[in-house]
C-alpha cells in the first residue's frame, strides 16, 4: 500500500517548505507570516509526517525487525528531536509578533530553524540512501 508513503513524503515536503517560508519571512522581519507558517504549516505537517511514518513502519513490518536499521533510527531521532525545536521557534515567533519587533527572538527563530533544516537534510539523506 503506497498511500502511507505518499502521505509521509508529501507532508515532509510541506514541512520543509513551510520551514523555509518561516525562515525567509522572519529574516525579512515579517514575523506574523513566519509565525503563521510555523503554527498552521509546519506543526500540522510534522504531525501528519510522523503519523504517516509510523503507518509505513507498521505496514512494512519494520516493527518485527531487530535490530532496527540505522536509517529508521535516524528518521525517528531527527523527527522527534526537531519537533521540540519547531515548537520553540513557534513560541519565539509568537513573542516577536506580540512585541512588534524581532531583536534576539528573530535570531533565536533563525538559529532554531537552521538546526531543524540541517537535521532534515540528514534525514532525507538517510531515507533515500538507507545506510545500514
Amino acid at each position: 500500500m503506497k498511500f502511507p508513503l505518499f502521505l509521509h513524503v508529501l507532508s515532509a515536503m510541506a514541512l520543509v517548505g513551510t520551514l523555509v517560508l518561516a525562515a525567509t519571512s522572519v529574516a525579512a522581519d515579517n514575523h506574523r507570516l513566519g509565525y503563521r507558517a510555523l503554527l498552521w504549516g509546519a506543526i500540522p505537517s510534522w504531525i501528519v509526517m510522523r503519523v504517516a511514518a509510523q503507518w509505513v513502519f507498521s505496514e512494512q513490518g519494520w516493527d518485527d525487525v531487530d535490530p532496527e536499521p540505522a536509517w529508521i533510527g535516524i528518521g525517528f531521532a531527527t523527527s522527534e528531536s526537531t519537533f521540540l525545536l519547531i515548537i520553540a521557534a513557534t513560541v519565539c515567533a509568537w513573542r516577536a509578533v506580540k512585541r512588534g519587533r524581532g531583536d534576539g527572538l528573530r535570531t533565536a527563530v533563525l538559529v532554531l530553524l537552521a538546526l531543524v533544516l540541517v537535521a532534515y537534510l540528514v534525514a532525507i539523506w538517510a531515507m533515500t540512501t538507507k545506510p545500514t
Partner: protein
Amino acid sequence: MDDWLLFLHVLAAFLLVITVVMYSAVALGGTLGGRATFIADRCWDVGGLGTLILGVWLALKLDEYGIFDGWIIGALVLWLVATGLGETVRKRTAEVRDGDGTVTTGAVTTLHWVRTLTVLALLVLMIWKPGA
C-alpha cells in the same frame, strides 16, 4: 552512486515544493519580500533542473526502469507543464505585484494552484510508478 543520485533527485523535488509552498502563502494573502521571492524562484530553477537531469539519469542507469516507461513519460510531460506554469506564475506575479508585494490578480492565483496540482500529480507518479 545510485543512492546519491536518488538523494539529490529527491532533494531537488523538495526544492520544487519549497517554491510551491512559498507562492501558496502569497496566493493565500501573505506577502513575500524581494529576497524571499528570489529564494523561491531559485529553488524552482534548481529543483526543476535537478529533478529532470537526475531523474533521466536514474531512468537510464537503473535496470528496473526505462526512459520509455509510461509513468516516466507521464512524469516528463507533467514536468514540462509544471515548468511552463511556474514560469508564467513568476512572470505574471512580477507584473501584477503592487507596492507591498501582494498578488492582486485571481488568474495568477489560479495558475499557481494548477501548478501545485501538477507537482502533486508528479509526486503521485513517483510514489505509485504505475506500470513499473
